[in-house]
């Protein structure tokens, strides 16, 4: 057995420990520490594994890129975990099971990002989705959370059904469920081409649902609003990261760009997501709904990466640069988003935009962090979000994807409106000055905010080390 499996085993071990402990005595702090330690150990092992050689097994593939993505995943989970304790204390439910489901979700995500086989991919997907249902409907008394849980259950089942159907058709054609066999052109064309295209569309439908891309986006705003905050943070980062990585890997390994209709579908989905996401976000007064729609738009931008075809004659149009673009964008967007969520966790009373009024004058540090995060989401220079957008624009210009670029410009311009609205809400004079007086601002939150600022602004101004690291990985 290879070293590569160890981080996942640690997660399994951690969740088993919590289970065993539940049988004897319930203690919140113990579950917190167990999950934290296993995450930390997994994170450091993953860091250590960065330099290992690549390994392809029947079910999984491990190389520099998957290790990096797993590392990114662990870092995001870790950042979310560090906020979870105080937040769970405010809930009236049993607390220990949350950590269990939390670890299982992480495990599902890690399995998905390094899967090399439809079986392992599906296992990871189901592990993650089923744990999510528990996480979403965690607060039993909350009607909205229950509704969101049911919604996710049904839609997730439908999405899985679509993916299974697509997998079955592909199996009929290729005779194998391994991702690496998707590439081989079979000697006998068993099925007509349109069935394969159909299968691809089925798989896309399932994954687009997880990524909440238009037209499979209708669930996301209700879910973001209804689910507990930390679950929302996981849903927005972990599940989308895993799903997008699988989508990208399938697209590359199967060379699905060869089908014109698939390219058309991606272009249409991408443009539609940019517009629908940005325009719907404009009308939101609820912060979480706004973040939900903005995430639709961001994954719309990211879909451009799938259309980059290798053509070494043009500047920046190598496989390596496309991978770099994808990785940089994911790093930038996910860290920014985790930052936004951790600020929201620190402000438990804030639900609507107007609740933010006066934050800037009472808690300037939190407000400045949130302002910079919003600017990063909007893609203003000197933030990580801008560098990501710059990568994307450079790559797209090399491929001359003018239509998508025009949509990107229009979408970002519309997007500015609502990011500015959030900033504006913070600098407005408050109706009552006491709203933020009882906020806790302990050292934990402060250091977390400083870390986020360091990531988003530090790497925004001096992206060299990050981009060189990503360049090494992509090669």
């Amino acid at each position, binding site marked *: 057995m290879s070293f590569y499996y160890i981080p996942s085993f640690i997660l399994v071990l951690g969740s088993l420990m919590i289970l065993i402990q539940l049988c004897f005595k319930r203690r919140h702090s113990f579950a917190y520490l167990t999950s934290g330690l296993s995450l930390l150990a997994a994170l450091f092992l993953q860091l250590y594994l960065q330099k290992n050689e690549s390994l392809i097994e029947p079910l999984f593939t491990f190389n520099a890129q998957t290790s990096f993505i797993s590392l990114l995943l662990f870092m995001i989970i870790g950042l979310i975990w560090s906020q979870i304790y105080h937040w769970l204390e405010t809930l009236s439910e049993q607390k220990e099971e949350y950590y269990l489901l939390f670890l299982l979700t992480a495990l599902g995500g890690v399995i998905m990002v390094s899967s090399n086989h439809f079986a392992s991919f599906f296992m990871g997907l189901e592990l993650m989705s089923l744990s999510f249902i528990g996480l979403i409907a965690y607060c039993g008394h909350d009607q909205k959370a229950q509704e969101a849980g049911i919604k996710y259950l049904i839609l997730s089942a439908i999405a899985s059904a679509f993916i299974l159907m697509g997998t079955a058709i592909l199996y009929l054609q290729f005779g194998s469920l391994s991702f690496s066999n998707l590439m081989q052109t079979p000697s006998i064309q068993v099925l007509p081409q349109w069935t394969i295209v159909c299968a691809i569309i089925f798989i896309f439908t399932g994954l687009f649902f997880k990524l909440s891309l238009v037209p499979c986006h209708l669930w996301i705003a209700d879910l973001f609003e209804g689910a507990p905050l930390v679950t929302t943070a996981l849903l927005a980062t972990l599940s989308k990261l895993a799903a997008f990585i699988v989508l990208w890997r399938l697209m590359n390994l199967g060379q699905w760009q060869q089908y014109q209709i698939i390219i058309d579908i991606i272009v249409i989905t991408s443009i539609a997501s940019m517009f629908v996401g940005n325009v719907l976000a404009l009308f939101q007064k609820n912060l979480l709904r706004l973040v939900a729609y903005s995430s639709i738009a961001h994954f719309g931008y990211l879909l451009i990466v799938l259309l980059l075809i290798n053509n070494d004659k043009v500047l920046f149009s190598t496989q390596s640069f496309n991978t770099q673009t994808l990785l940089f964008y994911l790093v930038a967007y996910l860290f920014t988003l985790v930052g936004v969520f951790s600020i929201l966790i620190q402000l438990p009373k804030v639900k609507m935009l107007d609740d933010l009024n006066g934050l800037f004058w009472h808690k300037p540090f939190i407000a400045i962090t949130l302002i910079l995060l919003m600017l990063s989401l909007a893609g203003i220079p000197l933030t990580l979000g801008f560098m990501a957008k710059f990568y994307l624009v450079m790559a797209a*210009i090399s491929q001359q994807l003018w239509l998508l670029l025009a949509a990107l410009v229009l979408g970002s311009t519309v997007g500015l409106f609502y990011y500015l609205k959030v900033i504006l809400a913070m600098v407005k004079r408050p109706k009552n000055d006491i709203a933020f007086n009882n906020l806790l601002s302990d050292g934990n939150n402060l250091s977390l905010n400083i870390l986020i600022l360091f990531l988003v602004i530090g790497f925004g101004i001096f992206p060299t080390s990050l981009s060189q690291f990503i360049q090494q990985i992509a090669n």
Partner: protein
Amino acid sequence: MTLFILLFIPLIGGMLAWYSEKFNANLPKKIALVSLLCCWLPLFSPLNNIIFNDNSFALSQWLLNEPHSWIPIFNIGAHLAMDGLSLLLIVLTLLMGLVALSSAWHEITKRTGFFYLNLLWTLAGVIGVFLAIDLFLFFVFWEVMLVPMYFLISIWGYENRHYAAIKFFIFTQAGGLLMLLSLCALVGVHFQQTGLLTFDYIILLQNPISGDLAFWIALGFTIAFLVKLPALPFHSWLPDAHTQAPTAASVILAAVLLKTGGYGIIRFVLPLFPDASLILAPSMMLIGVIGIIYGAMMAFVQTDLKRLVAYSSVSHMGFVLLGCFAFNIYALQGAVMQMLAHGISTSALFVLVGMIQHRYHTRDLNKLGGLWSKLPKLSAFGLFFGIASLGMPGLGNFVAEFLILLGSFEQYPKLTIFAASGLILAAIYSLLLIYKTFFGQIKGPHDSKISDTNTKEWVTLLSMCFILIYLGLHPQPFFDLTYTSLTNLTFIPSNIGS
């Protein structure tokens, strides 16, 4: 390091100003003043060279040139350089920074620390725009300077400030994104044609790109600059932003932020895309002329003093556009002169409007009148700057407009005839402004406590008068300073005689 120091002084000054608010609400403005004065120190040696040995700067275009590496993966450098053109505009920026500070001194009483932080950071951003020679760095400054300006308008502005601030930000950001696309495309095409990946202006300049894409890239850059200038279809953010901004922000907007548009065209569009800008020229001249006439006519119908001055800016900046695309050294020098003179005269008008509003709490032309009898000193300054704005000979604005018309008449006589009518229209709205505000019946509330200009105010205004008169009577040093930069534009020798 001189240029980097110049850039960092206002940044650090702003931080200090914000921090110092904790101790005393009056401290931030003093720190802002000190840091603005410190900004002159790095400029001392280039200014000294120019004034005392005339020949040194004629040899090479760049007075100071400081390349550093920044993001090696894209070969992006932190490359700052200064030539005569940018030196002039930086001097203008720093002067107008002082003027803005003077007008904010008593006007801003709330959240002073954050105000001066934003004021200084805007100035730092503008200085960065004028100094950046790496295109990526230029873009960064171009976008980043908007953020503090956004806060200036949206926090300290007047009644409709949020709308105006958002509109300002969105318009300029949309232009900026277009510029980002063009910039990346420019670098991509340059790489294809030369095999050299660079964002450096000086290197890009050596091999101007050609082909179909060049036209579209040039158009992208031009539109981004037109938004900022602002030229006609993209001007609608300006009246709102000016009207709602506090006086200090209006001064910065009118005096330096608009100039970045003109600067961008002269520095980037014309030399980087010589062929494309020849194709663009007729339509740009047309937009310029329409802007001149439209701005003047809109200024004439305004009843809000600030809107009137704002529309007059649209009209005046039309002249800059006209001068830039006339491909002629006279017109170009006129355009630079217009940027300087308009910067000073318009910001002086905004300062005056700010003073009137501070005293009477209205900017409505119909509610003002007969100020001369009550505020003779202020009204005299108003008369002076009103007349400057209509282009009275002997003042900087006249020299500028005359040169622009002279230069463009050579290329496009018919358009220039229409443009010249802008001078008459300017006279109409300027005189209307003077007449309705300072003469006529006394309409304002009869409050004997309203005092005339105090020492700080008239020193500010008087020094602006002197600069305008100097620009008008002895403009030659300024022409000499920019001559090298402007003649380096490659097309000028080939076109100058035709």
